[in-house]
């Protein structure tokens, strides 16, 4: 499926809003198994996205993705900045090269993040949300409960990437913060698509 420039902006802005509403909760998830700043980091980044979209008023899909990517990448700095930045940069590059299918853009973004983080499913990272979620989306099976299920599954995983990996067994029992913050992106997408109907 294709998403218009306007709808894409709507989608991203809804995500921005979700992050803003959940800063403290995301920080708390990161406190349990990281350094406690994921909410702050991502809110700094997404607020910069909101500002950049308002100021630059990108008129094409590649430009919307690029503006989003650059704002994230240039204001976050943490692990999540590089990862979300890579995702949106990939979507910018592919859409500029003519790819218009959102499914493909998302699947490729997921692959690019795996490469960036040298990570894969089962490592208790955002990949554990993105990988199943993008595939479900491709297969028209993405639902809120499916998303929630992916987030919840990270709880019983043992982290093997990032700060939480030092905790070894003790990382088990906590949800991964970027899986959670990523879930809002897919929930926001569902919302935008539902309104369309």
């Amino acid at each position, binding site marked *: 499926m294709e998403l218009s420039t306007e709808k894409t902006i709507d989608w991203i802005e809804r995500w921005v809003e979700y992050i803003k509403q959940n800063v403290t909760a995301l920080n708390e998830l990161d406190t349990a198994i990281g350094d406690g700043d994921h909410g702050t980091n991502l809110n700094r980044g997404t607020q910069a996205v909101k500002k950049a979209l308002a100021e630059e008023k990108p008129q094409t899909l590649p430009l919307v993705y690029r503006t989003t990517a650059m704002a994230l990448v240039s204001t976050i*700095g*943490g692990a999540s*900045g*590089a990862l979300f930045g890579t995702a949106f940069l990939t979507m910018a590059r592919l859409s500029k090269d003519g790819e218009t299918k959102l499914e493909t853009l998302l699947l490729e973004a997921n692959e690019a993040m795996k490469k960036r983080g040298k990570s894969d499913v089962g490592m208790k990272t955002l990949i554990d949300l993105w990988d199943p979620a993008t595939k479900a989306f491709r297969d028209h099976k993405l639902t809120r409960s499916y998303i929630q299920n992916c987030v919840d599954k990270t709880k019983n995983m043992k982290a093997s990437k*990032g700060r939480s990996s*030092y905790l070894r067994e003790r990382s088990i029992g906590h949800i991964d913060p970027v899986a959670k913050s990523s879930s809002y992106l897919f929930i926001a997408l569902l919302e935008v698509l539902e309104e369309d109907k």
Partner: protein
Amino acid sequence: MKKIINNVENIAAEMVSGFVKTNPAKFKQLPETLAVARVDDDFVNGTNVGIVSGGGSGHEPLHLGYVGKGMLSAAIAGQVNTSPTPDQIYKAIKYADKGKGVLLIVKNYAGDVMNFDMAKELAEFDDITVKTIIVNDDISVEDAEDTQGKRGVAGTVLVEKICGAAAQNGMDLNSLAELGQKVIDNTKTIGLALSAATVPAVGHPGFKLAEDEMEYGVGIHNERGYATEKLAPSAVIANELVNRIMKAFGSTNGEFAILVNGLGATPLMEQYIFANDVVNKLNELNIKISFAKVGNMVTAIDMHGISLTITKLENDWKSYLRQDAQTVAW
């Protein structure tokens, strides 16, 4: 939380500004970045391989204090305990490149590794040759395949010194990256905390130790260590750290460099007493010390504690360590 600051959001920016304003003849801040870069004639007219490092703020004088002739070409500061962003790293790489390429010295944290990686890609897009080495000297964490791997801590400054001196002497990028990797492989550090750091945005110490407790194996971002024990005399601590590090080396043959590093709130008095015990212990083990450094070199904000780094020296490393460096903090 008691700190001499203005507000938590501006810490990194004001710190970098204060650094550059008090050293205007030697450094400048690259436009729209928290990157500090050399402006001395040697650099401006030079043609050596550039060396760029950086990382989250809170470890000062790392990295900005090591910018200068014989060490780094430029250093980028991130927010406190947060990697700098790729655009800023990219600008520093671009500034540091004199046509011979640029070596990136990165501490092994996911955020740093990925953000430097993105910057590298941006620079390569501009046909700048870039090589990255990842410092992971903290042997208090296991080097397991299914983790992020060992952390980069105080040993970073020795890597920066050795590579910086070699670059100053004209070494090419490939050789520098090889040299740096070898130094990393030969460098081992363990930290010790008497009390945790207070991250400004958090406002209280990262963990609590009782009045009579200390913790072996802490990281420089309040990462917990491998053992909480009763506070022991300096000589006992020195024994534990020396023994554990030398066990990791396996052999006591050859020449070694040592770095006794204060973690931010540790008076030099304690650092020299501890250094005395470390040297005594190494002498007892018949281990040859060819270079020693003591001081607040790689800190953890206001952590009260110390780390010991030992590097097994090869080839010219000793002379690279002893070579003059024109920086604020080496």
